[in-house]
């Protein structure tokens, strides 16, 4: 464990082939998954595999850091932002730029081939493992280097991190420039523009659900956009239940017809057909 062999053991080989495939699959999923969340998760998987590889390469400290910092912190940050921003139309894998995909594929392929060819004909024969380098312990060795040879770079990274933090705060923090408008002012404004004088309707009204992502239905059964929050609309996470509601209504009517016998039922049924109530929603359901 402390003295890692120059040439890797067969056990490592097995590990490499299994985990390597996992890593590649994870990477591919990262770029192919439709939803950002899935991409993030698969990337996290790849990173964990990489962490294992670090360990296998004798970089114990880095392996841990990889898991803690990357998979732990950074990927979580990603997930937060994904949640914050949500899934947008941008997630559709449909290409908009002409020829972009082909270019990407071709270039990627070519580039990869080039790299691999480069590594291939590079004369990487002799391996002096990290045995003596890690003799005093990997972390100690790194520390010795960081605080002697790379101390300036190290300090700079510190400064960089602080700057980044501040920058992130500045960027995301929204300063309220103007005074918050009082209720009176807002109502006056509403009256003035006269579009929507009353408060917006609550979700779920006239529907059987009352979750926030379900729009209320108008008298004719169509969903009302006003009742759901813009963000949800933005993400297209609105569940439209109007169709189901109409179906329920039909079932109800049929049952009531059975309930009240035929003669009048037929007439009423036909008459029911005439009745605008159920008729109108059909069109609503069409859209």
């Amino acid at each position, binding site marked *: 464990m402390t003295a890692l062999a120059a040439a890797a053991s067969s056990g490592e080989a097995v590990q490499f082939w299994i985990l390597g495939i996992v890593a590649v699959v994870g990477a591919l999923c990262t770029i192919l998954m439709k939803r950002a969340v899935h991409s993030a998760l698969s990337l996290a998987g790849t990173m964990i595999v990489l962490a294992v590889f670090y360990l296998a390469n004798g970089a114990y400290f880095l392996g841990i850091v990889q898991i803690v910092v990357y998979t732990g912190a950074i990927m979580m940050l990603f997930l937060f932002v994904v949640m914050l921003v949500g899934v947008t139309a941008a997630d559709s894998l449909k290409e908009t*730029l002409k020829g*972009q995909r082909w*270019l*990407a594929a071709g*270039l*990627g392929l*070519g*580039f990869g081939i*080039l*790299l691999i*060819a*480069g590594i291939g*004909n590079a004369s990487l024969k002799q391996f002096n493992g990290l045995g003596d380098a890690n003799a005093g312990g990997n972390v100690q060795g790194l520390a010795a280097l960081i605080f002697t040879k790379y101390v300036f770079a190290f300090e700079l990274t510190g400064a960089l991190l602080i700057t980044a933090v501040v920058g992130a705060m500045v960027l995301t923090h929204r300063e309220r420039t103007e005074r918050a408008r009082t209720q009176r002012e807002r109502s006056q404004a509403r009256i003035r523009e006269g579009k929507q004088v009353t408060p917006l309707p609550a979700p779920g009204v006239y529907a059987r659900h009352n979750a926030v992502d379900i729009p209320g239905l108008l008298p004719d059964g169509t969903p009302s956009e006003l009742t759901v929050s813009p963000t949800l609309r933005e993400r297209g996470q609105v569940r439209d239940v109007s169709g189901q509601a109409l179906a329920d209504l039909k079932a109800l009517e049929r049952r009531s017809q059975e309930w009240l016998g035929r003669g009048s039922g037929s007439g009423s049924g036909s008459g029911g057909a005439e009745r605008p109530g159920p008729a109108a929603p059909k069109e609503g359901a069409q859209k």
Partner: protein
Amino acid sequence: MENLIALLVAAPLVGAALLLCGGTRLDRAGHWIGSLLAVASFAVGVVLFAGMLGRDAGHRALHQHLFSWIPVGGFRADVAFQLDQLSMTFVLLITGVGSLIHIYSIGYMEHDARRRRFFGYLNLFLAAMLLLVLADNYVLLYVGWEGVGLASYLLIGFWQHKPSAATAAKKAFLVNRVGDMGLSIAIMLMFTTFGTFAFGPVLAATGQTSEGKLTAIGLMLLLAACGKSAQVPLQSWLGDAMEGPTPVSALIHAATMVTAGVYLITRSGALFNAAPDAQTAVVAVGAVTLLFGAIVGCAKDDIKKALAGSTMSQIGYMVLAAGLGPVGYAFAIMHLVTHGFFKAGLFLGAGSVMHGMNDEVDMRRYGGLRKYMPVTFVTFGLGYLAIIGFPGLSGFFSKDKIIEAAFARGGTEGWILGGTALLGAAITAFYMTRVMLMTFFGEERWRNAPTPSPDRPSAEPAAETRGEYAPPHPHESPKVMTVPMIVLAVGSVFAGGLFSIGDAFVGWLEPVTSFSHGHSPVSAGVVTAATMVVLVIGVGLAWLMYGRRPVPATAPRGSLLTRAARRDLLQDDFNHVVLVRGGEHLTRTLVYLDHSLVDGAVNGTAAAMGGLSGRLRRLQTGFVRSYAVQMLGGAAVLVAATLLMRGV
């Protein structure tokens, strides 16, 4: 003594400077200042002449070196004067006639608002002309040469509000410039050949170089002479030059400036003597012009233009004589001087006639004027007799000698030239008689001639400035005008005789022009007799045509030759069609080409650049991902490059 030479030039120069820069405050005294300085210059000339007579022939030439003008490398042009017998002759002629004409102009230009300026220009001309004849090297001569050109430009165009005058002035200057081109090329040739262009060394060294070079120089000098002396083919400007005030025509375009060419050829005599081919060219030009001018003179109804034609023809005589070499130089100059007298007299007479006739110039509206302006009639008549070579008068002596010299050239050439000269004499007699008859004899056609009016302005707008449009009432001119005419008449009567007493004139000039007696195949007596005969024929013919029958008030259509002669033998039309039109087309096409071709190429490049960058701009889609593609492509290229480098 020699320090006076500069004074000759300085006096009129100062006058010009004063009058032209002096401004209106000199308007009242301007003409007096001008005349005074001209006379002063004449006085200096006389003093120098006396001094020169005081010395023996060998040491008569004077030199005055003022300062070194353009010293660059081997090229050393100095402002230095040389006053020898030849220059002396010209100095006296120029200043003498010049002074007379100044005085005459006082009366003639009396009513012109810009008289001060006129006298300024006259003085400028005197200075330039004196510089021309006094210079001791060709470059300084060139300065005077162009100076007189400028003065003549200013004076021809003196009435600039007349477009015809302005055009005539421009034409004169341009044609002269062509001649000047010849002179400057000649100077360059001299410099490259001799390394100098001062008269002394150049003329001394003519023996040491190839004849071809000398011929080239000679031809170039001839070109210059043609331009200045209105010889074929550069004669076209002289007729139009009559647009200028009559005194100008008398002084510049009859007596002095137009004879500068003769001076140039005579001055370069040694050079021409060494280049026979050049001399032949000179002779040919002289002979052709002699006839050309005479023929033109026969057809003109404008009195001044008729006289201009005669001037041309007389200068033709002089050039012919100068071309004959040592045989003729002296006679050329002699004829030049006598011609200066009688032609100036004739012009002044014409001016006086016009003065009395509301500046009418058309001889067909004259007639029977002898009893209205006797003095003019007499002086003009004497000039007339002199020019046709009436025995005993100036013209007789000078022209006769030239004809003899022409015969003396010997061989068929001699016969041709002599014949031409004789023919010229006949024609001269004809057209001068014509002028005389149409002006002073016959019935008074002016009585029922249309009077000039604002819508039909007369030739010399002095009338407009005077504001008289009354029908002409011929009257004698004031004393200030008649006196100079009388003096010139006297000159034109006696000068010739004076000069040829014991060949005084020839002897006087010999040290400069090296005289040699040509042996003529026909004796002098025969020549004289022949001259007399052709003279009588010419006069008689003229009398038959214009004396016997009345002269129609409007010109008849006339024969083909007449019509051609009226149009200066179609010379102008030729120039117009070939040079003017051609030039216009050339410049127009060039302007077009400059814009479309030369500039078009440049703008085309610019446009191409713009188009290219427009295309390239398409790459900047603004989509981050397309940039990323390009980045990746670049990276790939880099990797590939490094690999290949390693591979190599």
